């Protein structure tokens, strides 16, 4: 109903201010590793109750075949080697613990990795889908992050799409690119994919009244980009550091777990 | 006195290692006996205990329980572990279920007992170890002493005749240690035998009826503590003379 024109300068000034303030609101911690215990993971889970029931159901159905295949693989793994039961549990717990780790972010404050990049390299995407869902369940019930009705959607973004992209990159680049680059791209792009899919999920559920799905996707993508893009880069860097450390100190364990190139 | 556990001439080398860890170890444990096992780190104590529970298989030698040679097929191992229980040093390595009751019931259920019988075993073992009030707790929500007692209850729920304890008291404070030894007394009164690997010489002198000293994979002495600590020959052979005097021997780094 009413419109106002502002000068260009003021616009950019406002935008810069918003980014700065947004940055500060988002990362209010210092690089203190202990703030991790009890602080909020800042990656994108759709919270409980946010998705309309049709969409919530839809994403559960999308996730279902991955769960079925993943569960079948896990059952077979454990049947063949009973020791895998503990190992998978430890891997899942490790993924969860990693998400509670505080890492310095490239923008200067700190954030938390999703941990699925490393897990995918070790276990493959289907098993990771199941483990991720359990991690998400833990996060919903032990950290009040994410949700139960949105478990399907969050699994598709964080447990399926992310790991699938990561796995594809890992398989594709593994012996063709320098190790550190492969690991970085696997983790960073897996993380980025998670955020992109979440933006798609939100855009599908809440299309823009003017621009429809596309405009909505751009909107949600932009709004969350401030936190997610630096986080992806941070996670990429962290995973490289971790993998390097593991290769030098734990190559035996990695080999036992079947990581090629160890 | 009936011999419940007997180890004859065990030789063992970890796969991939050149040095044998056990070089002809023999010992025996009678019903209702309290025996302490001491030796420096790397002397083979833990390896020996793992053999007594069938976790490791010797290259040479045999383990007998109640006179019978122990086999390593599934059924035989099951029967073995029904009679010989083993608890380890760090309770976090032994509590693997989400809740205390679930963890204690693990052993009885593996033995094939019915649900009601298993429940009874859980209740009895918990009462013996003083952890009945913790049954509904998650296993991570326990203090160190509570965890050790729960780990013990988990093994006792299988009602073994022999209890092997691999330095299970070393992480406990003095009062908790007394508490655990009191539980051991109750077990001994029931006719069970206890073999406790320990570094604590005070416990060895006051609690044990017999002491076995190991070094470099061999048994150097097997005698009651009073005898061991007063015999200069035994003290020198086992190297305990330096410990008793409090002076480092010149040849030990």
């Amino acid at each position, binding site marked *: 109903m009413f419109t106002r024109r502002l000068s260009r300068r003021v616009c950019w000034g406002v935008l810069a201010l918003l980014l700065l303030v947004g940055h500060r609101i988002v990362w209010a911690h210092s690089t203190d590793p202990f703030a991790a*215990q009890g602080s909020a993971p800042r990656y994108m889970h759709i919270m409980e109750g946010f998705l309309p*029931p049709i969409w919530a159901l839809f994403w559960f159905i999308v996730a279902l075949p991955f769960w079925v295949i993943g569960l079948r693989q896990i059952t077979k793994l454990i049947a063949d080697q009973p020791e895998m039961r503990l190992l998978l549990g430890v891997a899942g717990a490790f993924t969860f613990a990693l998400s509670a780790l505080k890492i310095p972010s490239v923008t200067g404050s700190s954030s938390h990795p999703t941990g699925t990049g490393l897990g995918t390299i070790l276990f493959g995407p289907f098993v990771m889908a199941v483990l991720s869902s359990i991690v998400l369940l833990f996060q919903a019930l032990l950290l*009040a992050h*994410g949700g139960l009705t949105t478990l399907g959607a969050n699994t598709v973004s964080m447990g399926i799409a992310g790991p699938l992209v990561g796995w594809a990159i890992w398989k594709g680049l593994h012996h063709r690119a320098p190790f550190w680059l492969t690991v970085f791209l696997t983790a960073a792009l897996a993380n980025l994919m998670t955020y992109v899919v979440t933006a798609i999920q939100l855009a599908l559920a809440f299309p823009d009244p003017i621009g429809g799905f596309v405009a909505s996707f751009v909107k949600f993508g932009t709004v969350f980009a401030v936190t997610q893009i630096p986080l992806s880069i941070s996670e990429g860097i962290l995973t490289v550091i971790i993998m390097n450390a593991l290769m030098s*100190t734990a190559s035996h364990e990695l080999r036992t777990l079947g990581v090629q190139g160890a | 006195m009936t011999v419940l556990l007997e180890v004859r001439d065990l030789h063992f080398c970890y796969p991939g290692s050149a040095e044998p860890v056990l070089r002809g170890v023999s010992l025996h444990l009678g019903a209702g006996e309290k025996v302490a096992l001491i030796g420096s780190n790397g002397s083979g104590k833990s390896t020996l205990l793992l053999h007594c529970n069938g976790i490791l298989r010797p290259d040479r030698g045999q383990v007998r329980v109640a006179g019978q040679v122990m086999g390593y097929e599934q059924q035989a191992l099951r029967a073995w572990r029904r009679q010989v229980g083993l608890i380890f040093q760090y309770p976090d390595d032994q509590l693997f*279920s989400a809740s205390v009751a*679930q963890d204690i019931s693990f052993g009885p259920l593996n*033995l094939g007992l019915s649900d009601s019988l298993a429940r009874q075993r859980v209740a009895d073992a918990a009462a013996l170890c003083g952890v009945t009030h913790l049954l509904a707790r998650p296993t991570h929500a326990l203090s160190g002493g509570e965890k050790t007692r729960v780990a013990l209850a988990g093994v006792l729920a299988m009602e073994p005749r022999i209890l092997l304890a691999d330095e299970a008291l070393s992480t406990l404070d003095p009062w908790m240690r007394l508490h655990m030894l009191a539980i051991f007394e109750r077990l001994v009164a029931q006719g069970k035998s206890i073999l406790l690997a320990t570094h604590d010489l005070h416990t060895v002198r006051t609690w044990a009826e017999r002491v076995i000293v190991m070094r470099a994979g061999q048994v150097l002495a097997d005698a009651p503590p009073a005898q061991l600590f007063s015999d200069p020959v035994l003290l020198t052979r086992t190297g305990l003379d330096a410990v008793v005097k409090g002076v480092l021997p010149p040849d030990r780094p």
Partner: protein
Amino acid sequence: MSQIDRYAYTSRIRHLDPAQKTGLAALVIILCLILPRPAVGVGAVLWMGMLTVWWGGIPLPVVGRVLLAEFLFLLLAVVGVVLSFSWEPPPVGFWSLQLGPLWISTNQGSLALAGLLVSRAFGATAAMNFLALTTPFIDLVDLLRRLRVSPVLIDLMDVMYRFVFVLLDSMGRIATAQQSRLGYATRRAAWRSSGLLASRLFVDAYQRSQRMQTALASRGYYGDLRVLPLDYRHDGRVYLLTAAVVVSLLLAGSRA
């Protein structure tokens, strides 16, 4: 992180059948999602908040803090729903603001949707938190077992639950040791320390699983797992309570 867990197993209604508590929470969440009025969400927050505090015995500040855990996501997502961006002036009926070449606008529909979303999200979250704060995780996993979810999955969840705390504990100790040696004094050191921490944790986790395997074998484990069913208190009054909540939410959702 252990906060919610600790409240769960010390809550006053801890021993109540998790099926009853889950049934109540599930019905509230479903009603929040399918009834199209914000009053439902508000009602759900009030009901669930009240029950968590008075029935469950959880302190009000805790309930409030947990409810706001996803505040940041909600804020950002609502901004995304409310605002529309375009390069041309928006159609009639929109309030708008122009920043340089960009038009930022909103309209009544978007605002109404945002209002509904906020109340719905808070309502459903309050119900989920009720469950999380008053029911121990092991009970919920046991409920899934009763619902005949795959035993492999149940076992995996139990093992993960057990290990999570052990690993977090380990992580805390390693971080303390690092910090005492200036591991986090500079940004570069913090990066290195985090990487070392995670890899050390990995090895620690792996070795734990190996040691645990030995302990498992020594108690006769051969691959198939049996678990004793847990016992709970079943309270008939909970059905009445559930009915009351459901009816009041339906009423809130239907009034014009």
